[in-house]
């Protein structure tokens, strides 16, 4: 087999089996050429006939902002049903989803983000045979402009989102032609994962292929919906907090010292020195509170150099963080955060129902259940529930991932909620700046919040007294000279404060019940992926 290897034009080495395959492909190409020439011979008669539709179709010249063409009335696809019977001719720009020419007719499905509509070209007074042939040969995903008349149909068109009408095309121009061979088919990428349907097509696009060709993958209706929902989460976060008197701030991402602990931090070269990429905006949020901003939130990138290749870890993600000064008890903040979540869930449920349904066409989406006011359990109660179920875990032991998930299910079974808060975590497992519980030295004023059994927020009351902070840092064996600047910010009077941070991608993933965080990150970054 080794002797038979030969280099082919495209640089691939071919074995005996490959050579056979090539011979087969060559034979196929030969036959195709034969058929083409035969067809050409047939059409020779037709081509020489006059093309009465000339000028109404073709490849448009590259749009370099030459003409304004403001007289053309473009209508979005999802508004077309309102145009039936009203306007005579409308212009629509969209992508060729599929196009099938058969004899004297061509059926073309035009796609605009999540909407699809059927377009039909039939040889007649307006349309010529050459025009139908042209339409049938436009490569998939090409961007086209069509001028057409929206016409009502007698029977519903099941395969499109616009089911009650079709467009009778009069003019068709290609604005941007796509390559003929696509690395993945949008249809395949949009196909639902239906394990039960044995007869259905089983072609899937695997995650790596999708992520390598993200530009194509993002065009699927489910992805369009996911990222619009993600934008909704950010918008709701901002609106809800702004309504409660929060101010948005932006914190630096290039910092001089690792904030959360040395291990998982990216180093960057900074002129002649080096600096780090921020693991969280923690330090700066607190400084903003000390600077009298009272209630702040920030939306920005978070960088964690964790070499974890799991379904829920990214090296770069978007953090939605908030910090709030309070009067006497950190529960003032805890309830604010909890209620913010409730409001976000309600907003998503009410204003983004269409997007949720769109995602549900491809992925199984279980409706997200939550209680109002949100459920708050004590850490000790959670441990008791786990022990009742036969899990052995210590009083001060952190919850392992399987235990977290099991607890999530126990809570769901008992209280019927996918979102809950666990309050009063053991002090031993929290960072040094966490305020201990005044009544019980084992615990701390810290909390975690969970969605579908996975942690999405970790927060606490922070120590705002510089002397106490030094004491706790020493207790944790931290060199106080390294955090001198941090401690300094509390020396000029600082109100008691608490806060927390959530990962935007994780929240969207868990809200929809998706199985991988890369589905909710537009261009994900993980230990193995740096492009696109």
């Amino acid at each position, binding site marked *: 087999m080794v002797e038979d290897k030969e280099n082919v034009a495209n640089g691939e080495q071919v074995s005996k089996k490959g050579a056979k395959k090539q011979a087969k492909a060559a034979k196929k190409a030969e036959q195709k050429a034969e058929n083409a020439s035969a067809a050409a011979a047939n059409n020779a008669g037709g081509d020489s006939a006059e093309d009465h539709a000339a000028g109404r179709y073709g490849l448009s010249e590259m749009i370099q902002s030459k003409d304004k063409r403001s007289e053309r009335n473009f209508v979005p696809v999802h508004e077309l049903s309102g145009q039936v019977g009203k306007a005579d001719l409308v212009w629509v720009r969209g992508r060729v989803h599929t196009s099938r020419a058969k004899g004297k007719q061509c059926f073309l499905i035009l796609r605009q983000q999540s909407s699809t509509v059927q377009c039909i070209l039939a040889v007649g007074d307006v349309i010529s045979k050459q025009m139908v042939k042209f339409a049938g040969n436009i490569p998939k995903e090409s961007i086209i402009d069509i001028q057409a008349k929206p016409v009502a149909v007698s029977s519903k068109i099941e395969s499109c989102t616009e089911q009650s009408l079709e467009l009778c095309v009069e003019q068709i121009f290609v604005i941007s032609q796509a390559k003929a061979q696509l690395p993945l088919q949008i249809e395949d990428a949009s196909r639902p994962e239906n394990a039960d349907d044995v007869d259905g097509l089983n072609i899937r696009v695997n995650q790596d292929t999708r992520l390598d060709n993200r530009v194509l993958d993002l065009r699927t209706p489910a992805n369009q919906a996911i990222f619009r929902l993600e934008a909704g989460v950010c918008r709701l976060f901002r609106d809800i907090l702004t309504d409660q008197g929060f101010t948005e701030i932006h914190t630096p991402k290039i910092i001089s010292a690792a904030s959360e602990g040395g291990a998982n931090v990216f180093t960057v070269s900074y002129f002649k020195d080096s600096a780090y990429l921020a693991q969280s905006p923690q330090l700066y949020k607190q400084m903003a509170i000390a600077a009298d901003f009272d209630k702040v939130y920030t939306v920005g990138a978070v960088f964690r150099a964790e070499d974890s290749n799991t379904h829920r870890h990214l090296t770069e993600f978007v953090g939605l963080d908030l910090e709030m000064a309070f009067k006497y008890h950190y529960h003032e903040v805890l309830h604010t955060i909890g209620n913010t979540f409730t409001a976000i869930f309600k907003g998503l449920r009410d204003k983004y129902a269409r997007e949720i349904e769109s995602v549900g066409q491809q992925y199984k989406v279980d409706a997200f259940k939550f209680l109002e006011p949100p459920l708050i359990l004590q850490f000790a109660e959670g441990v008791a529930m786990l022990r009742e179920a036969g899990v052995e875990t210590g009083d001060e032991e952190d919850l392992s991932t*399987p235990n977290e*998930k099991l607890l999530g*299910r126990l809570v769901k079974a008992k209280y019927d909620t996918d979102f809950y808060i666990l309050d009063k975590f053991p002090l031993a497992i929290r960072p040094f700046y966490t305020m201990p519980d005044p009544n019980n030295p084992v615990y701390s004023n810290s909390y975690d919040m969970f969605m579908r*059994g*996975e942690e999405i927020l970790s927060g606490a009351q922070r120590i705002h007294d510089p002397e106490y902070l030094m004491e706790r840092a020493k207790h944790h064996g931290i060199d106080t000279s390294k955090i001198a600047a941090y401690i300094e910010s509390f020396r000029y009077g600082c109100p008691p404060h608490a806060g927390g941070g959530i990962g935007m991608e994780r929240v969207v993933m868990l809200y929809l019940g998706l*199985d991988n965080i890369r589905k909710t990150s537009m261009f994900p970054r993980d230990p193995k992926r740096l492009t696109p």
Partner: protein
Amino acid sequence: MCDVATVQKIAHCLGVNPGKVQLNEEQVVTRISGQKKSSVAGFATILESLAQESKSETAQNSKASREVEAQVYQWIEFSVLYVAPGSKDKHVSKQLLADFNKLFASKSYLVGHFITLADLAVYYAIYDLVKSLSPVDKEAYLNLSRWFDHLQNRPDIHQGEPLLNFTTIYLHGWATGTHI
């Protein structure tokens, strides 16, 4: 598994006085019982002799028909030769659990629709293995767990010992959980 303790437990189950149970010179479990002090050696044989003396439901079921008797005997042999030693091996035990789980998907008992010695033999053979499973594992082998929980709740079987915790296998109805 073919040890003294198991034989005694099964004897209790069947409501029979085990007599004197010990390992003989060849390390084979032996039972000396009755006025005649007759000795019986070998786990399966001992079980048979216990069953003959027993009036319990389990024993009666095991003799329901010749086919049932034969199947019960096969299961007892299987549990001694394969299940008991296999359950101590990391890889074999996984296979065992998976196989039993598949079997119990459509059956409530090993032989027929009633409890027999076969169930007892297998139960005691895998007891330690099942005891070591985490709640997630117990759920992974849902059918096996169901059968085990059903058996262990019979007083003649658990004999006053604490029950193993299977509460999470009933969660399936309310909270399936994602990404497990």
